[in-house]
């Protein structure tokens, strides 16, 4: 895995070392909180909290919100919200360390920035929707689920990567 690239900002951790470290983080999460990592849950938490401020009646009326609000005394006081705040800090630290802090839109030379942003937004909407239906995203359901050998985790993992592989051909221009 010796890279010929000399640019410091393109140097990354060896993927296997990164994987082992990520596994250790996941073990720590399970050891402390009895659960794995997660990202989409934090988004949901923030949304429920915000809706509760703007339109509390709406939270009560919406079955999906109220179910969530019932289980959590204060939606913002949520494990995943704190964890995702940490991810922002951790990502920033690593970016600063490797000289990767830069405002930019990353895209294939074959497409414009505008198209890339449009695609990113669309992908985000799909991912947000799917993560709610599938009860968790790549980190919460697939990765954490696999670590505890849950059937649900393996199904979600197979569905996400299987679909992305199948659709990869149609979106190749966006990436290569």
């Amino acid at each position, binding site marked *: *895995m010796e890279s010929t690239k000399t640019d410091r900002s393109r140097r990354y951790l*060896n993927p*296997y*070392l990164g*994987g*082992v470290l990520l596994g250790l983080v996941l073990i720590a999460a399970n050891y402390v*909180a*009895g*659960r*794995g*990592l*997660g*990202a*989409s*849950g934090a988004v*949901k938490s923030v949304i429920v909290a915000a809706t509760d401020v703007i339109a509390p009646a709406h939270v009560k009326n919406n079955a999906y919100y109220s179910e969530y609000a019932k*289980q959590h005394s204060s939606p913002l006081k949520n494990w*995943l919200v704190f964890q995702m705040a940490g991810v922002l800090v951790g990502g920033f630290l690593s970016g600063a360390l490797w000289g990767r802090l830069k405002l930019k839109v990353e895209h294939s030379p074959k497409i414009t920035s505008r198209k890339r942003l449009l695609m990113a937004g669309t992908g985000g909407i799909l991912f947000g929707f799917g*993560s709610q239906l599938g*009860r*968790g*995203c790549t*980190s*919460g*359901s697939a990765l*954490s689920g696999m670590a505890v050998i849950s059937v649900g985790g393996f199904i979600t993992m197979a569905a996400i990567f299987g679909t992305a592989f199948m659709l990869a051909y149609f979106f190749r221009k966006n990436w290569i």
Partner: protein
Amino acid sequence: MKPRVILSISVVSLGLLIAAVPQNTTHPYKLTADQLLEEVKGRQQYFSPDELADMLVNKDPSIQLIDVRSADEFEKFSLPGAINIPLTDLLSDQYSDVLNQDVKMNIFYSNGTVDANQAWLITRQLGFENNFVLEGGLNHWVETIMNPEKPAATNPNEELARYDFRLAAGSALGGGGAVNAAIVATGDQGGAPKPIVKKPAKKKASGGC
């Protein structure tokens, strides 16, 4: 060496190791004090003597009486179908199949309530389900079922009906104290299927990505 080779060698050897050792099946304390207090407050662990008598008369197969008094006391008198697990031997391995299972409802009893409740508390904290306590213990049982007090004729009909039931149950269950060996045997036949040992109910952290 390439990182992949290092990783492969280490995870395969660890994998072989973990596949070879038996899974850790020790189950330490399962319930938090709060959860336990909730159950105690709700008195969910109790069976009343009337409920028990009804089930015994109907030969309900789903219950297993467990006498937590000493073996001597058990010899002298026990309830029909009961088995003896002295409180001091509660955690002995030979009884774990009986106490930690998913098929029958175990009902602990002792003379009063204290020993049976202690047995319940210990097994419940271990996360075992299906364990209960005979409310009031044997003393209460004898009072209500074996020597029921005849209610005054002015009492509501339910009281009288309950008295009749207790009287009938008392005689059917061999009132007066002698152990009915036949019933004891049917309750604990060797041919009966062994209870399936199930993992205790899982009370986990809430999930959520």
